[in-house]
């Protein structure tokens, strides 16, 4: 069965510090991978998605970047965090089933607080 891991679960970082959040997927090959951010009490904002190794699409211009060094690894980074980067970060994966159906499966999330 497929599983998705995110770490760390919580993180408190000072403004201006770097960030690295990691997401890995097990039990599937060549998944699409996604990074979302969710502000408190709000919906999900798609930040990046990737359809393959080294292929990153950015949805929102911002202080963050993403990389996919391996098929089942997706990393979210920042060189210098801003207060506005605080939020709940979710990683997700999907595969294309027959008939153009695409469900997404989410990790447990990382709660980032920038102080």
């Amino acid at each position, binding site marked *: 069965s497929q599983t998705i891991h995110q770490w760390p679960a919580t993180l408190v970082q000072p403004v201006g510090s770097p960030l690295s959040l990691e997401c890995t997927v097990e039990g599937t090959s060549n998944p699409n991978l996604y990074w979302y951010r969710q502000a408190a009490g*709000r*919906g*999900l904002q*798609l930040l990046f998605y990737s359809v393959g190794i080294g292929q990153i699409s950015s949805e929102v211009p911002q202080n963050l970047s993403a990389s996919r060094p391996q098929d089942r690894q997706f990393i979210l980074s920042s060189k210098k965090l801003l207060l506005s980067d605080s939020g709940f970060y*979710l990683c997700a994966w999907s595969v294309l089933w027959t008939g*153009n159906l695409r*469900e*997404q499966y989410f990790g447990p*999330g990382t709660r980032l607080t920038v102080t």
Partner: protein
Amino acid sequence: SQQGEEDPQALSIQEGENATMNCSYKTSINNLQWYRQNSGRGLVHLILIRSNEREKHSGRLRVTLDTSKKSSSLLITASRAADTASYFCATDASQGGSEKLVFGKGTKLTVNP
């Protein structure tokens, strides 16, 4: 841009009652999906309805889709306290390699015991 918009934003009901949440969207879709999120957790996929389907059931869940009105509803029957969560609709309008869902802002459901 925001695709799905759920309403109401918040809903509070008593255990045993039915809960209905609505979602409206703007563009043509391949399918529409509903997800559930418990507080502080990741989202869990509940049900997917294709653009050529009008109604789908899964246990106590009933989803309808009206593509002419660009709207969907999620009905939870005989609600339980454990149904307390936020519910999100997500639309799949993927075309030409655009591989993404667009999520609404969600409905926060509280089921009181």
